[in-house]
């Protein structure tokens, strides 16, 4: 439970808020209210991505994208894959290893892992196992999904310490976290 009071902290309320937050913090977690202290107007931190967000399950192939994070690698036949952690999978043709050719980007929100068997790619869409037909990497098809099977992503706390946007329980379960610019965030881990 965290204080959601968005008004400035008046001296009379400040103490109550502090006690309330201390109890919440020791009771359950390391995450703490910002206790009415000065929170930064703008700071980079994590914000929750809700399972109910329509973008969360949007799986499709788009044109080649620039590599950003250089994530986990996988190879099969003449196809080389590199995960763009949290976003999807880059696909390369390495028939000529001295000149790899980037073929496509498979947008899979929350992706961290993959395996391939034949023309089927297995990955995670946050905590769901998804099976994708990659016979044509420019036109992939989602074949099946096992929802919520993993605990790889989401949860009650962001991946790193720092300020974060508080979870709104009314928005349902958290699928994952994204790093972005936060404005006067009320929570801290």
């Amino acid at each position: 439970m965290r204080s959601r009071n968005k008004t400035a902290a008046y001296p009379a309320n400040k103490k109550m808020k502090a006690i309330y937050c201390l109890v919440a913090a020791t009771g359950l977690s390391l995450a703490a209210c910002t206790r009415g202290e000065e929170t930064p107007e703008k700071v980079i931190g994590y914000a929750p991505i809700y399972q109910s967000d329509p973008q969360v399950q949007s799986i499709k192939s788009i044109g080649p994208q620039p590599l950003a994070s250089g994530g986990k690698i996988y190879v099969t036949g003449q196809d080389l894959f590199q995960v763009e952690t949290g976003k999807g999978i880059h696909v390369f043709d390495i028939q000529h290893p001295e000149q790899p050719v980037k073929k496509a980007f498979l947008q899979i929100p929350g992706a961290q892992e993959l395996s391939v068997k034949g023309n089927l790619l297995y990955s995670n869409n946050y905590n769901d196992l998804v099976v994708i037909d990659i016979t044509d990497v420019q036109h992939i098809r989602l074949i099946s999904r096992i929802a919520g099977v993993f605990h790889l992503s989401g949860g009650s706390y962001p991946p790193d310490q720092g300020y974060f946007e508080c979870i709104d329980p009314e928005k349902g379960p958290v699928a994952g976290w994204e790093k972005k610019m936060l404005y006067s965030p009320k929570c801290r881990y």
Partner: protein
Amino acid sequence: MQILTAMRKICSLGIAACGMLLLLTGLCSCSKDRDALTEDTAGTGGSLARFTIALNHLYAVDHQLLYTFSLADARNPVKVFTNEVGFDVETIYTWKDKLFIGSGTAMYVYSIADPGRPSLLGTALHTRACDPVVANDSVAYVTVRSGSNCGGNVNALYVYDLKDVLQPRQANVINLQNPYGLGLKDSTLYVCDAAYGLKVFRISEAYYPLLVSTVTGETFYDCIPYGNLLICMIEGGMALYDISDPAHIKLEAKIRE
């Protein structure tokens, strides 16, 4: 008569030789990048992976559990078993009928002799650290790394004797700087020591890795030996090397964009 018998013998030998040749060329996949003839085989991931496919099952680890999915109907996997492995589970690797799972506090060896039901064979505890594993019949190589997410203060390559797989025995420790993933092929072990380079060890004596070369200039996180190619995960992308001669590996290409 004798000449006829001799000729028959030569013919038989010739036919046998032809037969052998046909058999060999039929079995040999020959292309350096293909491991098998069918399309339905699984590919190869790096040592940092949490997913792996073996024995027609998909094995996946999150931070605590090992999930086993049957791929009998590959398009519709079915979860058939869950094992409680431990805490801070990081990686999974397969070799024949075994799974090697790395966590922040231990390496676990599981049997998948019954592929739908992994069972714990042995555990090797070590100081708190992140640890990918690669292994074969008799030896496992594990890197341990200090750092904020991993805790501890050890950076090293641990070598485990697996002859008694129920009790993996630490056979050797080689100090490193900031090691991440590893790759194993024949008698060469490739260790990614981040900004300190890709370290190439000869492991003809499995428990006594011998450093033969270091590739610097990049930050190396993981690598997959793939035929004569070594595919490396580096900062910002990938690097591909020709490893036909492991003592003198040659850069093929870098992918950063």
